């Protein structure tokens, strides 16, 4: 609204980018606006607030696709056993391919030291006060890691079931780890992380006789938000069920590296 004369009393005046100020005075007033009269203008954006993160994530994804590298984003609450699962997984896979791990923690190098002992290349990101990894952090980590082709990159996200859900990192698949000591109602309490994941690893299955955890109930709860979620029950400690997880990873390697883009190219060239 023009504050001098109130000539646009329908509310805020929307000007075009060239700022053509059209007051449409029909009353023939002889008034003058003061020299320091400031003009208001609405800039319409309709811009997704996560668009910056999503763009970087898309670039990370294409970079990894170009290297034929499989990237898995591992999310969970603290203490579900992500690092132990990764240690065992690396021991199993390291002979056949190059493996990388990006570790996200608020502080310390504890997990990186554990992973480095397995022979995988590990890089720690300390998020400080941050509660999740974002695509920019992964972009700078990728610049340092010099990823080889036909490799697997694991991202161990910050232990948190809330914040990492909203941030695409550029991974091929997202893996949620839940342990049987956490309770089967977690998918209903933290639906976003279960909705955005592809695979759910139900860890610490060796403790099932001692806790009131029904795996079928967890699956039922998770399918409320994500009917396509896959499940593998395992114990990183005893090794039970780990074979199914290794087989799943190798299937993803195949899927991630045989992406056929010839259809896109045909479309682009108008054939």
């Amino acid at each position, binding site marked *: 609204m023009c504050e001098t004369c109130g000539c646009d009393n329908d509310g805020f005046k929307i000007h075009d980018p060239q700022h053509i100020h059209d007051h449409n005075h029909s009353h023939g007033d002889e008034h003058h606006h003061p020299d320091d009269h400031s003009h208001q203008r609405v800039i319409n954006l309709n*811009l997704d607030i*996560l668009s910056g993160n999503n763009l970087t994530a898309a670039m990370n994804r294409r970079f990894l696709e170009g290297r034929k590298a499989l990237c898995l984003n591992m999310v969970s609450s603290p203490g579900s056993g992500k690092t132990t699962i990764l240690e065992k997984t690396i021991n199993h896979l390291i002979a056949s391919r190059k493996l990388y791990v990006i570790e996200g923690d608020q502080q310390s190098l504890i997990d990186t030291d554990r992973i480095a002992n397995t022979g995988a290349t590990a890089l720690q990101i300390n998020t400080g006060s941050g509660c999740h990894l974002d695509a920019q952090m992964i972009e700078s980590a990728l610049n340092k890691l010099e990823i080889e082709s036909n490799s697997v990159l694991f991202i161990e996200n910050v232990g948190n079931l809330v914040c990492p859900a909203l941030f695409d990192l550029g991974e091929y698949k997202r893996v949620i780890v839940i342990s049987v000591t956490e309770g089967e109602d977690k998918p209903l309490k933290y639906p976003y992380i279960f909705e955005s994941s592809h695979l759910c690893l139900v860890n610490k299955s060796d403790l099932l006789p001692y806790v009131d955890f029904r795996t079928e109930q967890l699956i039922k709860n998770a399918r409320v938000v994500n009917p396509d979620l896959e499940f593998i029950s395992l114990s990183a400690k005893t090794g039970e069920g780990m074979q199914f997880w290794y087989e799943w990873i190798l299937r993803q390697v195949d899927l991630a590296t045989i992406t056929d883009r010839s259809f896109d190219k045909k479309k682009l060239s108008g054939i």
Partner: protein
Amino acid sequence: MHEFSLASEVLKIAQREAEKNMVRSVSEITIEVGNISGVEVETLKSALGLISEGSILENACLNIVSIKGRGICLNCELEFEMNQRIDTCPKCNSFPSEIRGGNEFRVVSLLTEEE
């Protein structure tokens, strides 16, 4: 507390657009937040209040438009309002539903002051 990261994305967008449009200050920013988007509005408000100090948004009014969640039941095709991501169909109690609204999280517009 990812709202701090989200607030800094909002500030980045406002700074970039203000610079691009050569405006001296922003007097109002309008943000759309879907009520099943996973964004906590009160926390976002506090975060924006803190990080906007000394920035282009320092004196801006924050106008938050809340968008209701809407789902379509995949079983009986009923369209219903969702207040939580895990709401099931009120008629047949089935799930999942196709989300048709409520995931929004956008900067809609800036009201700017210029010379």
